[in-house]
């Protein structure tokens, strides 16, 4: 699908705003968007959010034979992918110029800066080394992919643990995660890319451009730096002429930003480590913000629930007496009942022992059957609660609470394909209930 074009008025507005030192999201010139780092349940899996830009990083490892000319070094492999999910304009399975440029920049930033000790990845020289693979997926594109991707890559590498290996003579033993604690990679330093966008042939400069700013910029300067202020790579694109002091100024800003981001990464890693140790909840599900669409929610009006049951009884009493067809629940076998014409039960041998009950008690039977049926989902939910997969709290809210007389609206949801009379009666009750809420 084609990219949404940028309209003339957006372009003009953006440039004028930049001239006035204003940005769309209210940031200052040198401000970064909010960075959020969350970790998955596995080691080496993280999601980095830079504003609305979102990158998933996943590290995996494998024992392979080393390259011939580097017999004692492990292999590092980086791969960034731009999926269509991030932006509809990205084409799947095609190496676009942007993708090649970003991948190359990532490799220069992380591999060529020798931030990971590849020699420590050697198991048996010339025979077996670890191959570390870093997969980065762009999940949402809102500009400045390279910064988010470089943060995601280094965070995932820091978080990763590889299985322990021991060598005794010719025998190589690979220990499972349960047998021995996995070992982290040895990381010398953390290079982080910082992007600078230039406008009006270098007159104006912005840090961390978002997608719309990227579209109107004239040139881009990316500086990769670690917290010791060592420049790992630097790249200028867009073909603008920069003055020496402009580049120097950018490198100074980059130094400050890298220090901040490194601090943040270390804090996030520390947090995750602590939570894992304490056995608390971790993983992506825990870190998703509970963002509700509230703008137009009806304000909660206090509803008097003290005499709900009496009221319900009243309504039932006032309602038309149930028709003949419904009022006689059929008891096929002990434990199974049928009201009206549903699908016949094939459970047990159907003895013809029709027990007729009085008309008055039929409401009880209906409610009982409703209760019986709603028990099932809740039971299922309890099982999954015990399972290792952690359900978020919000899911629990949706469990239907099974009080026979309490909330006909909810139980109706499941009762509605039952014979018509049941659901129509519930509908009557629902209407009456709703009125005070409005």
């Amino acid at each position, binding site marked *: *699908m*084609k990219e*949404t*074009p*940028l*309209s*003339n*008025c*957006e*372009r*003009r*507005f953006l440039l*004028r*705003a930049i001239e*006035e030192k*204003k940005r*769309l*999201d*209210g940031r200052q010139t040198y401000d970064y968007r909010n960075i959020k780092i969350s970790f998955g349940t596995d080691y080496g899996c993280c999601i980095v959010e830079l504003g609305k830009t979102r990158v998933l990083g996943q590290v995996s490892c494998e024992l392979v034979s080393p390259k011939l000319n580097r017999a004692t070094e492990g292999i590092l492999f980086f791969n960034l992918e731009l999926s269509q999910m991030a932006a509809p304009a990205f084409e799947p399975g095609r190496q676009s110029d942007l993708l090649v440029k970003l991948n190359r920049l990532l490799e220069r930033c992380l591999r060529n800066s020798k931030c990971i000790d590849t020699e420590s990845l050697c198991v048996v020289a010339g025979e077996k080394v670890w191959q570390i693979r870093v997969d980065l997926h762009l999940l949402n594109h809102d500009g400045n992919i390279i910064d988010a991707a470089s943060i995601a890559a280094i965070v995932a590498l820091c978080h990763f643990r590889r299985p322990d290996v021991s060598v005794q003579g010719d025998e190589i033993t690979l220990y499972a995660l349960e047998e021995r604690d996995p070992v982290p990679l040895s990381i010398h330093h953390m290079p982080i890319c910082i992007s600078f966008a230039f406008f009006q042939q270098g007159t104006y400069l912005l840090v961390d451009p978002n997608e719309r700013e990227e579209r109107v910029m004239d040139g881009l300067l990316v500086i990769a730096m670690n917290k010791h202020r060592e420049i790992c790579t630097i790249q200028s694109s867009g073909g603008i002429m920069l003055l020496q002091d402009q580049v120097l100024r950018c490198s100074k800003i980059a130094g400050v930003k890298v220090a901040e981001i490194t601090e943040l990464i270390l804090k996030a890693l520390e947090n995750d480590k602590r939570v894992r140790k304490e056995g608390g909840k971790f993983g992506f599900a825990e870190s998703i913000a509970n*963002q*509700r*669409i*509230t*703008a*137009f*929610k009806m*304000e909660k009006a206090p509803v008097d629930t003290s005499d709900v049951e009496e009221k319900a009884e009243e309504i039932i009493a006032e309602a*038309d007496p149930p028709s003949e*067809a419904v009022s006689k629940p059929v008891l096929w076998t002990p*434990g*199974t*009942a*049928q009201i*009206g*014409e*549903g*699908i*016949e*039960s*094939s*459970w047990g041998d159907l003895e013809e022992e029709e027990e007729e009950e009085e008309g008055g008690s039929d409401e009880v039977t209906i409610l009982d*059957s409703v209760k*019986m*049926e709603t028990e*099932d989902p809740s039971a299922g939910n309890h099982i999954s609660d015990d399972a290792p997969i952690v359900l978020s709290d919000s899911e629990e809210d949706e469990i239907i609470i099974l009080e026979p007389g309490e909330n006909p609206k909810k139980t109706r*949801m*499941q009762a*509605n*394909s*039952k*014979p*018509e009379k049941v*659901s*129509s009666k519930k*509908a009557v009750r629902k209407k009456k209930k709703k009125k005070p809420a409005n």
Partner: protein
Amino acid sequence: MHCWIMAASPISSSGPRVARTMLGQVVLPGEELLLPDSAGPGTEGSAEQTLRLGAVVRPRTRVVCGPGLRRCGDRLLVTKCGRLRHKEPSGGGSGGGGVYWVDSQQKRYVPVKGDHVIGIVTAKSGDLFKVDVGGSEPASLSYLAFEGATKRNRPNVQVGDLIYGQFVVANKDMEPEMVCIDSNGRANGMGVIGQDGLLFKVTLGLIRKLLAPDCEIIQEIGKLYPLEIVFGMNGRIWVKARTIQQTLILANVLEACEHMTTEQRKQIFSRLSES
């Protein structure tokens, strides 16, 4: 023991469900709905026997399928995920009629006939403009579809301009077509939008709510600054105030409105009007 109940529960059965019993509930794409034969749920046991669209022509009931529902032969299919809604016909409860639609929260726009949208001109080709409206393909707009345009008197529209127009053709098989005039040939507010101002995107749900007849947010925003604003049903908003600062504030407030409660919103508005 629960066998009969499970067999009769709607979740386990995949057959079509009666639309009326599903109101306010979540429906999923691909589900099939049945429209009720008659209004009274109390009429006999035959209420379950429902009318398939088009199967029996009933003279008085007129059912309109809004967004998220599609007629497919004699079946009524759900095409969006969301809550099923219904509005009784304005003439009174003749039963079974009215408008059904699915209230969904999404960002991708699907053209609907009659919708007013904001588009961006992407190309001029012969007698047509190609306009990006955020749908799966660009809409076409004839240069004659402007007020006062003739063969000789062409409208002044450049590539990259914003167009506020209305769909006259929008279906799943054809290229959508826009016009900037109403049936009387009047512009009626449509046409090219000015060169200043800011365009931004919000969710479709927010747009629908903002365009609701008695939307508080619009009234409150109107008191804040003097402004010009255009809402497109495709989730685009164009706004222009006196200064760039004000325009930015308005855009950010509108965007933030989706996730604020009424009190939060009131607070922010009162703070803004003080400053």
